[in-house]
């Protein structure tokens, strides 16, 4: 199976190390993947608040381009993943939306048929297609003894009926266990990271970030593993600020699950973007080196 990779805006900016590590992991596992040609922004959650039809149409352009080339789309950003799936669902279930958008696409020289293209999250592909057993076999450097706090954020499992449980997912737990990590069970797996509120309503956003960091620390985590660029950004970039507000030292590295996986598969540090994090992450690997 060859995939299209849909970076979305974040993986080209604040989530640059997610892109690096994801591409590296897929290359190491021999899964062919290339960037979706001339993709546009998915519209994220903000777009739906202004004009839903425009939001869906923007997302549909990406689906149409992918379909033209007949490849499934890997959407690593949880917001992109959710929006693209929602667009597919709405185009299938609501005739007035389907007709309007198909007509507009047609005028722009594009077609879209529906279920030919599947939207996948890389975690889904790795756990359910590649498989935990296969990944365990490929591990070259075990992360034995690294206590990881798996944090899924919200949209990767929303709306419900996705590839994992909507409030208590376990896919990443199983993946990290296969890498040798000691995975911490906790009830905040899908608790909101604050999303865009960290930039708009600081007091609220910081509190949500603090809750997660504090709980990770309390449970003795060496690192937080994330699947979403916004979660990673909030927990990493605002950590210093949260430490100041709550007068508490936290110092918890916040990593993409693909970085931990990449390391275990034997990738070079420079291919994982480890140096791009604000809270230093190298110390996590020093433990097992």
């Amino acid at each position, binding site marked *: 199976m060859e995939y299209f990779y849909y970076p979305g805006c974040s993986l080209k900016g604040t989530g640059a190390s997610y892109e690096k590590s994801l591409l590296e992991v897929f290359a190491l596992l021999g899964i062919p993947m290339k960037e979706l040609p001339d993709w546009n922004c998915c519209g994220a959650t903000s777009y739906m608040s202004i004009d839903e039809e425009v939001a869906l149409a923007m997302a549909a352009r990406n689906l149409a381009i992918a379909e033209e080339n007949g490849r499934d789309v890997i959407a690593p950003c949880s917001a992109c993943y959710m929006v693209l799936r929602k667009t597919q669902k709405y185009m299938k279930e609501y005739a007035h939306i389907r007709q309007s958008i198909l007509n507009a696409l047609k005028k722009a020289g594009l077609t879209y048929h529906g279920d030919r293209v599947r939207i996948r999250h890389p975690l889904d592909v790795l756990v359910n297609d590649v498989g935990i057993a296969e990944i365990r076999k490929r591990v070259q450097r075990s992360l034995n003894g690294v206590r990881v706090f798996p944090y899924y954020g919200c949209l990767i499992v929303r709306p419900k009926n996705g590839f994992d449980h909507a*409030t*208590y997912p376990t896919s990443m737990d199983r993946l990290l266990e296969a890498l040798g990590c000691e995975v911490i069970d*906790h*009830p*905040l797996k899908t608790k909101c990271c604050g999303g865009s509120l960290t930039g708009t309503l600081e007091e609220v956003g910081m509190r949500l970030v603090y809750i997660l960091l504090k*709980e990770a620390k309390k449970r003795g985590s060496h690192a937080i593993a994330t699947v979403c660029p916004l979660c990673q950004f909030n927990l990493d970039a605002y950590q210093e600020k949260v430490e100041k507000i709550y007068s508490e030292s936290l110092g918890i590295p916040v990593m993409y699950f693909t970085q931990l996986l990449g390391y275990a598969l034997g990738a070079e540090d420079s291919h994982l973007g480890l140096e791009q994090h604000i809270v230093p992450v190298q110390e996590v690997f020093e433990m097992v080196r």
Partner: protein
Amino acid sequence: MAGRNGDLPRIGVYVCHCGTNIGGKVNVPEVVAFARTLPNVVVAREYKYMCSDPGQLLIKEDIQKLNINRVIVASCSPHLHEHTFRKATLEGGQNPYLFHMANIREHVSWVTDDPEKATEKAKAIIEAAVYRIQFHEPLESKQVPVNPDVLIVGGGIAGITAALTLANAGKKVYLVERESSIGGHMAKFDKTFPTLDCASCILTPKMTAVKDHPNIQLITYAEVLEVDGYVGNFTVKVKKKPRYVIEDRCIGCYVCVENCVYKTPKYPSEFDEGIGLRKPIYIPFPQAVPLVAVIDPETCIEFKSGRCPKKCQQACREVVGRDAIDFTQKEEILEIQVGAIVLATGFQTFDASRIPEYGYGRYPNVYTSLEIERLVNSSGPTGGEIVLRDGRKPRSVGIIHCVGSRDRNFNPWCSRVCCMYSLKLAHLVRERTGAEVYNFYIDMRTPGKGYEEFYEKLLHEGVHFIRGKVAEVTDWTINPEEAGRLVIRVEDSLIGVVRRIPVDMVILSVGLEPRADAEELRRLFNISCSAEGWFLERHPKLAPVSTYTDGVFIAGACQGPKDIPDTVAQAGAAAGEVLSLVDRGFIELEPNIAVIDARKCSGCHVCIALCPYSAISFNETENVAQINEALCKGCGVCVGACPSRAIHQQLFKDEQIMAEIEGLLMVE
């Protein structure tokens, strides 16, 4: 148009208003006027309620005075009143099968919005009936004797009640129970709401009565394998699982259990919901009926390795002198002949681990309500002391209602008993521990005799009632008051504020759902299930314990969530239905059965393989198929399948159906 049997049809058409049910939508006078114009219709009348005595009298009088020989009633579904009008036709002096019912209520007035269209549709349906009835012939129903013995499946309070009622009436009853003891869920409870009388005090005498009753043959640790036959004459195969203890010899003295090589109990006790432990040889609870030990081959060393010193067997032989333990016991198949069957297979509770947010299975101090029933029970693993897993007494307890119920992600229905049993547990916990008790409910539902008073009592006892469905039970704590405890997060929806309430113990009031194998059982007994999976009654109000299969009755929670009073009432009702069936001594078979024309049958066997009731056999000497009239249900499968068109079904002959279609298409 002459009828098949020579006489000229003289048809009477009777259109029912059914109050406003039909009359409010269909223009009945117009329909009646139309009916008068149809071929061979001698009289057409309307009446407010045709099923009433004066309504039926119209039919009888017309038969006698106007020589009516075909009767059509246009009213409700034949399901409801076909029998009524056939009887009226008979009483008028005509063969009851020269009657036909046209359904203009369920098929017309209830489902059509436009009165004009409804009126036209009613006309078409009546015209179809008029065309069809020309081809009706007099038919005779047959009688077959009924075996008065009864099978009851399930030995909970429903099965026990039905068994005792029938046995006391002198009927021979076979009571089949899957577990090693009867008693069901009720045997696990400590107290019962709203009167708080002790469950075992009221149940145990009944269990003993079952064992001692000369008319009851109790078959425990057994399951029904096969059901053959029909109402009045069922043949049932029952598999009796080996318990490795000979029932007749065991006296329930516990010596084997005491002498088991396991010095202390090691395996979760099923009866104690895993809260207590048992040994591989055990008696599920002290009041078990029959009071006979059972060996679990999954955990017994002898079965696992074959190298156990078998001290239990030795003790039974040498100390008690009974030699009741038999490691070579095999399963046994019994064949039972009965005339009626009562299914009382009960329910299962919702698996709370399906809601991970409530932490069941992850946090040790989150319990299901059934586990708490064992915990508060004086014969339970803690002797009735309410303690946490580490032995501490809880200072505060949260009881979460509607777990798995009223939730479209799981079971959409209200389980009916949870509000009341939650109140009961709240009372017991408060009484015995003095803990703060919080009830989290969506709506309080206490609609039983004395139930509202019980709710009132709990309000006075100082129990907290917080209206809101709990989102999560979490060990994520944020202040010293919460540290080391479980936190319940809920919106107090009466106040409109989100609250975090720290507790030491959480009780999940799990809902009731159909047993996992309800679908299998349904097939076995050839009955129906509702969409939710409960056994379907024949009519929700008027035939609540009958099923669509004659002779098979249902009682208790297998039909839907029910508390003990309702279950017992239903079990009594089912026993009454059984008595009215078997005491009549015979049943009348509907004549709408398939008939094989032996001259046309080519002996191809196609029908034999297809018949779902095994009603067709092959006559080797004549080289033709033949139908057992008692077994045929008139489903019509063989009629459609016969390549030689040698089979027809009475009341559904080709000419009758073709005429009906023709009539239907006559109205524009």
